[in-house]
């Protein structure tokens, strides 16, 4: 059992301004942040540490097991999934304070909910779909599988020093998703179209800091996918 203070950045639907509120939580040290949020939300009355009445906390979740990417938020400064961030890994010092905030690179809807429409729009801008049947290449199967695992949670965009929603640079997740399609497309024109968009929306903007590789909640092999994507998209090679 641990007693923690959880500091949450809050914002209501109809107000621009954010503010922080702290709640106490006592429970199992193996609990996830998602569990803590649910526990706080299911109290009869929500009261913060200063004794003020509080509204229930708005946040998104679905699977609660690292499979849907809905629950991405900033936890102690790191973009992470609430459902797989456990208290035991977060409590560092004696005052047991954990701070959670919404991802900052997307518009906040309310509390920890953000509007990630731009992610899905950016994949459209890059024309990421197949026109033909996919080329089957046994050696690339594993990388293509990894490419299709991406949760679209947005953690890689949050950590990226170069990503900003208003720029043409679409960030790591667009490369990760693009890799499989660029490699599998048999229809030449569409393949070239995707390659051009890849250069414009990804290659020209990536500074290779690779902070995304460490932050990805499902440990996608980002550097590997990146060098393969560049091999096809920039150096015009075909992967063996």
């Amino acid at each position, binding site marked *: 059992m641990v007693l923690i203070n959880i500091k949450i950045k809050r914002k209501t639907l109809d107000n621009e301004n954010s503010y922080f509120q702290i709640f106490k939580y006592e429970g199992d040290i193996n609990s996830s942040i998602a569990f803590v949020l649910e526990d706080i*939300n299911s109290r009869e*009355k929500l009261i913060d540490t200063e004794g003020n009445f509080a509204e*229930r906390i708005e946040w998104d979740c679905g699977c609660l*097991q690292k499979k849907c990417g809905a629950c991405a938020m900033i936890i102690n400064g790191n973009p992470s999934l609430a459902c797989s961030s*456990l208290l035991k890994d977060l409590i560092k010092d004696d005052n047991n304070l954990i701070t959670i905030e919404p991802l900052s690179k997307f518009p906040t809807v309310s509390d920890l909910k953000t509007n990630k429409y731009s992610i*899905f729009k950016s994949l459209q801008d890059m024309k990421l779909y197949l026109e033909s049947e996919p080329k089957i290449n046994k050696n690339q*199967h594993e990388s293509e599988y990894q490419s*299709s*695992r991406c949760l679209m949670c947005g953690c890689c965009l949050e950590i990226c020093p170069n990503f900003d929603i208003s720029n043409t640079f679409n960030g790591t997740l667009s490369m990760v998703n693009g890799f499989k399609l660029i490699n599998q497309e048999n229809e030449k024109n569409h393949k070239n179209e995707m390659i051009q968009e890849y250069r414009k929306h990804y290659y020209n903007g990536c500074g290779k800091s690779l902070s995304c590789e460490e932050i990805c909640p499902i440990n996608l092999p980002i550097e590997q996918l990146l060098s393969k994507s560049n091999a096809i998209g920039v150096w015009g090679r075909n992967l063996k």
Partner: protein
Amino acid sequence: MTKLIIIGAGLAGLSAAISACKEKNNEVILISTMPSERAQSVMAEGGINGALNTKGENDSVEEHFNDTMNAGLHLANPNAVKSLTYHAPQIIKDLASYGTMFNRDDNENIDLRNFGGQKKKRTAFAKSSSGKQIMTSLIQKVRKYEIQGLIKRYTSHKFLKIIKNESDACIGCVVINTQNQELIPIFGDSVIISTGGMHGLFTNTTGSLDNTGIVTSELFTSGIPIANGEFIQFHPTTMKFSKKHLLISEAARGEGGRLFSYKNGKKWYFMEEKYPEMGNLMPRDVISREIWNILNEDDSIDNVYLDLTELPEEILENNLFEIIDDCETFFNINPKKEPIPIIPGIHYFMGGIKVDEYHRTEIKGLYAAGECACQYHGANRLGGNSLLGAVFGGIVSCKTALKDRNNNQNSSETNPKELLEIKEQINQLKKRSRKNPIPTLKNELSNILENSLDIVRNEETLEKGLNDLNNFIDTKVEDNYDSTSGIYENINFKNQCLLAKALIESAIARKESRGAHTRSDFPETNDKDYKKTTIARYNGKSIDIHFEEIPKLRE
């Protein structure tokens, strides 16, 4: 142009949308609470069934048909199942042609694995994230149509009510934008509901918290019947985690995992002992019942385990990676070294919105497909058949909708009566006098359900559940408004309670044991009275239950 409105963007919704756009002159509005990437379908691990017969085992679509009908104890519509199993091999090939990264065998054929209730290798899979890999390829397909302007995705929208015309046909629906609470009427030629199972009524479930069952409950309360609501599949191997359960996929047993418990200090492989032929791969209902019996009837046994420690490292790393990862992340258990303690948990709802063979509901212009609909699985679903049912149901519902289309003069009324009704309902809500918090009520509802609709049921516990529920509604739910929860949850809470009541009343009416419905007071299967579909219908005051004949298989 024909305009389809699809509510729910999981596998069934995406499949319907793609099917519509493959033909000319159709457009789709795809509505969901969250983007498809977040739908429950991405959670599916084990795989999708189809008699591809590439393993030299002489598999056939007939055998797939028989296995599906037998597992469902002949409650499914055989004509629908015939069509499902006949089309399954092509569906899997189509998914591969969209770019689904199925595992391949040495001959580059789509690899197949064993799955419960089937003797032949028939389940195509993509390591242990089959659902995610299938969804990714369909999302990429949908993206193409989105770019062409044929599909519009409205994420962050929730369904409130269907809109009907003078002749009672469905011509659209009212939805709420959850990012600004705006109420929006949308009109089209037909509406397909694909909003997933009723997981949100329970907490001992492996399903997504996104699938609240609210859409089903709203349709039920407005008079659309529910079929076979009592048939709830318990998956034998789950673990309690957070406020739900985490699934340990059947793939673990398909690859050789063994169930055991300790008896007199020794490992007891109870499934292998009792069922030497199929052992750990018996259908889910059988295994869940065995575990329930062991845990409830033998005082000396408190735990049941799944043992993967004897499996080769290569299988564990390649085919069961996600399971290993989940156990390590969430439970500090290393399945390569120690057995996993498991308990059964709710996994799938065989029952749901009543549809005909072609996915029509009783309302003209309204269709249902995927887990929200009662189709294909009868009294018990085979693992791997629901992804298949979701894809196929999406296709069939779309084709039926296009065929039935009665060219609704695409009304564009800005204020249909349904919208005004909802606005009035919201005004009235706020005047209500009880102030119980919905999260507390929700827990209480789940509690009542979990106590009565357990793996093994009887008249006494079911009647008690019904009584408790009636009491609960009268004393806490009627006239309640919780200003700290959203309007959407407030409007729909009583509907969810009524749907819950329909499930219990259906279980009371079925006085026999069959598939996932086990009655300790009626242990036998009674074909004469109950080889029928249970229909629960709300008439505005009470719920009527009756049984309907199952159609005969056409020649």
